[in-house]
């Protein structure tokens, strides 16, 4: 579609040049975009028009194979390792739930997870996290960024780093979607020194992202044409001003119409009733279904926060409710991804800011506990049925294979093929993608 319907003859030569340049800018073949595209080859150049490509099943399959994804299920408030991945039945600290055998001989998990017990072949359990900080804010910062010590600069969270590593320059879909409908522990997280390009599309109140549909007062034609007019001005401004922030402004505007057309990814009404029934009627289930739709369309990182795990009172009732849901939804998500051939390219991780005390308090609650807790990884790059680390009989401390946040992050990076030794540079200062000393846990990687 042209910028103007009037004949080009009516335009001055320079205006035509500028408008053509503006169109190029809008179409994502700016000089920078073009150079990047040619550097990585035709397959990825094509991916800049990914939505079109998704129309073609062959290309879509090809893309699926190349693209890795991460779905982080963030258990805000801190889920109990004793009622999930590291049960201690029969101990005073063990609580009332039993442990059950899983599909991997010798590995037991809480009876609250019967469905996951049948999917150990897609699961790696880490039982030996010691992240030291048991304060919500400080601990969340550590487990969001993988960095135990404040770096004095705003550091990117896991989603931003993965968006940066796996996102494509002119992607039509968001790189990083974060669903956080609960108020407990809600922190936007963010891209820190990596910049706003990798900041999450943050969904709190609504399931469909804000501002992704055109105002009714504006026709689609005018919406697009005024964008061309903007690009015409932008292109003039860029002359003699090679500035990355200015470029980011333009690329953000270039991505708008792509993102708008991908808004339907958030609409679960587009799924069959049978598929929706599989995930179940809860909001967390629906969000995981959205996550699958996003991953399928090429979004590298999706975070879903399920909150209210902070069970200072009524720990067992809380976990009966929340783990039952987690078990069902996680199992469904794994099956669904596997059915679509996406599981081998998608890593699912579940953890929060910490675990919960073995000690049961007088409200039958468990309190904050960061010195011996668990996380789980599923799908891409992990060794199914593996368990890393060990806590003592009462779950009070790690006695084997202690894991820090940096090790957990290195493991996630390694599982999806990102070099965990990579360094970013902030000015003169090198900031490693994995915090100093972080090593992947080889034993649970495929």
């Amino acid at each position: 579609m042209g910028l103007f319907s009037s004949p080009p003859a009516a335009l001055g030569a320079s205006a035509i040049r500028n408008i053509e340049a503006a169109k190029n800018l809008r179409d994502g073949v700016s000089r920078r975009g073009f150079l990047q595209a040619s550097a990585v080859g035709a397959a990825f150049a094509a991916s800049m028009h990914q939505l079109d490509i998704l129309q073609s099943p062959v290309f879509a399959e090809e893309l699926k194979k190349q693209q890795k994804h991460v779905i982080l299920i963030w258990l805000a408030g801190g889920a109990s390792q004793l009622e999930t991945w590291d049960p201690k039945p029969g101990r005073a600290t063990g609580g009332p739930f039993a442990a059950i055998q899983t599909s991997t001989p010798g590995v037991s998990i809480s009876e609250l997870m019967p469905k996951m017990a049948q999917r150990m072949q897609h699961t790696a359990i880490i039982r030996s996290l010691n992240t030291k900080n048991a304060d919500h804010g400080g601990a969340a910062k550590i487990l969001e960024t993988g960095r135990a010590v404040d770096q004095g600069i705003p550091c990117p969270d896991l989603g931003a780093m993965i968006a940066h590593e796996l996102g494509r320059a002119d992607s039509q879909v968001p790189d990083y979607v974060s669903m956080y409908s609960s108020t407990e522990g809600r922190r936007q997280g963010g891209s820190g020194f990596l910049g706003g390009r990798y900041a999450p599309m943050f969904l709190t109140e609504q399931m469909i992202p804000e501002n992704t549909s055109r105002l009714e007062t504006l026709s689609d034609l005018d919406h697009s044409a005024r964008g061309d007019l903007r690009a015409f001005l932008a292109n003039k401004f860029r002359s003699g001003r090679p500035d990355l922030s200015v470029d980011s402004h333009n690329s953000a505007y270039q991505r708008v119409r792509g993102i708008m057309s991908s808004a339907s990814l958030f609409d679960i009404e587009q799924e069959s009733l049978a598929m929706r029934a599989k995930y179940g009627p809860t909001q967390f289930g629906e969000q995981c279904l959205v996550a699958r739709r996003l991953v399928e369309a090429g979004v590298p990182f999706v975070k879903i926060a399920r909150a209210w795990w902070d069970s200072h009172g009524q720990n067992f009732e809380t976990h009966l409710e929340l783990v039952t849901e987690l078990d069902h939804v996680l199992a469904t998500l794994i099956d669904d991804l596997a059915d679509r051939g996406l599981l081998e390219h998608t890593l699912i991780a579940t953890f929060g800011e910490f675990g919960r005390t073995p000690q049961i308090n007088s409200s039958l609650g468990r309190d904050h506990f960061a010195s011996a807790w668990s996380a789980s990884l599923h799908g891409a790059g992990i060794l199914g049925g593996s368990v890393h680390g060990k806590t003592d009989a009462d779950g009070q401390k790690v006695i084997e294979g202690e894991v820090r946040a940096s090790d957990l992050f290195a493991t996630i990076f390694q599982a999806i093929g990102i070099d965990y030794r990579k360094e970013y540079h902030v000015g003169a200062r090198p900031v490693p993608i994995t915090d100093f000393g972080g090593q992947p846990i080889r034993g649970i990687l495929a």
Partner: protein
Amino acid sequence: MSQTLRFMIAAVYGLLLFSGKVGYAAEMPAVDLPIPTAIDRLLADSHERMRIVPARRADDRTLLRRTTLDLAGRIPTPQEIVVYEQDSASERQSRLVDRLLAATDYAWHLRNELDAMLLSGGNSPQEWKEYLLQTSRANQPWDETFKDLITPNQEDQSKRGASHFLKSRVNDLDDLTNDTSSLLFGVSINCAKCHDHPLVEDWKQDHYYGLQAFFARTYQTKSQRLAEKPPAELTFKTTAGVEKPSRLMFLTGATVEEPADPRTDDQKKADLEEVRLQREKDDQAPPVEPAFNPRAELVRLALQPENRTFMARSIINRTWARLMGRGLVHPVDQMHSGNPSNHPELIDWLERDFIGHGFDVKRLIRGIVLSDAYARSSQWLYAEPQPSPDDFAVALVRPLTPNQLASSLLVGTSSPDRFQKAFDSGGWDELREQLEKQAAGTAKLFEYPGENFQVSVTEALLFNNAQRIENDYLRISQDRLAGYMQESLRPHDSGEQAGDGEIDAMIKTAFDVVFARHAQEDELQAFRHYFQDRGDRSPAAVQQMLWAMITSPEFRFNY
């Protein structure tokens, strides 16, 4: 990372940073030179040495927009453009600067900038913003502000707001230490928490824990007062695992000896009980000021002639970076021997001048914006490769801050008549305050630009599709520019087409108001065609044209 590797990295970075800078010592200009002269003389020396011909001076309209954004926190109004152009060309900039420094806008904008710098802005407490506004209005000397931030007088209504600098960080001793060090002394020493700083020889763990010791007793009572816990032995663990006592130590290594603790065990117990009560109950009498207050000692040390270079250079560098787009030391929180200034003599000269003139921030700002360096064009249209940002040979393009953007959107989409009355007969102060309040809500939607700032797609989506953009800025109404533009073509409502001349006049007005510059020929053409193609929906066409302008980078950036 092994120690050896760390050492090697330090060595390599050292070399990189020093290359091309060492071996030359410029002559320090005289003490009584005007600031702009000193800046330009030292930069000219440096450019000559490096064979750089700096960019030409920006045109007047660009400079007007740039200076107004920097001193008033918004783009200029049409009336200000007229006044500016009435001045003789040689005096335009200095008269503009003096007008803006005297205007009510100056304090609003400086307040917002200090708020963003010291408390990350956004949702900071009203009391804090009031404090910053007052100090900005009064041009309070920076050493006094520094003192207020570290040892706020909570009894003084007008100073109490300063306590939020500490209060917002009081639950995290590392934040207190790092942020004080980085924001007020220009050095980020947090790397030294767990090991001696890998890149900087200056900072050892002793420094980190030494600085931390000044804040280690600070706590907040249930009634929201800052207070000091009784003395207690503090220790830290070295990398070698040795437990060492932390002493009260400033960044220079200067220490303070604490007087011996004369309290009996019973008194100590009672003091601890007092702290517990203060923390748990909000009906306690204000806690007693301790005879020995470590934070007061920090202020005393930091302001001593041999130590005050840290707080002075930090605010100078941050002010420079804010106005020039890059620090004289970059990054602004890495002002240490391993990361020397790009213009060491200049920052030395500015430091001497700043301290010699009573830590006068306004004077410093005035000096910078009157320099030729500030006035350079941001466009590099020459055959030679573009110089490094460290050379200040071409103006850097700077993203608007959230408040600058939100206020400018209001000004730039207002009918040119809107400000006429305030301009003619006074009342600007009220209008400016109203503008500030109106802008505050929108400002929260934008990200404060840090280093390597990138505009998010969320912002682009907001401008594209949010109803509030349509309502707030593109409304066809009497007080908005869109209404004014539409009105200018009203004689043709009856169906007769507006002529090219009338359309061009309308477009020129829009460029004047939104961009504070004249529309160029190709722009006139493009916009005229855009408008004429939408003859059946000219109000919509006006809105779309305006939209394209306020979403263009020319509007989004200070250039």
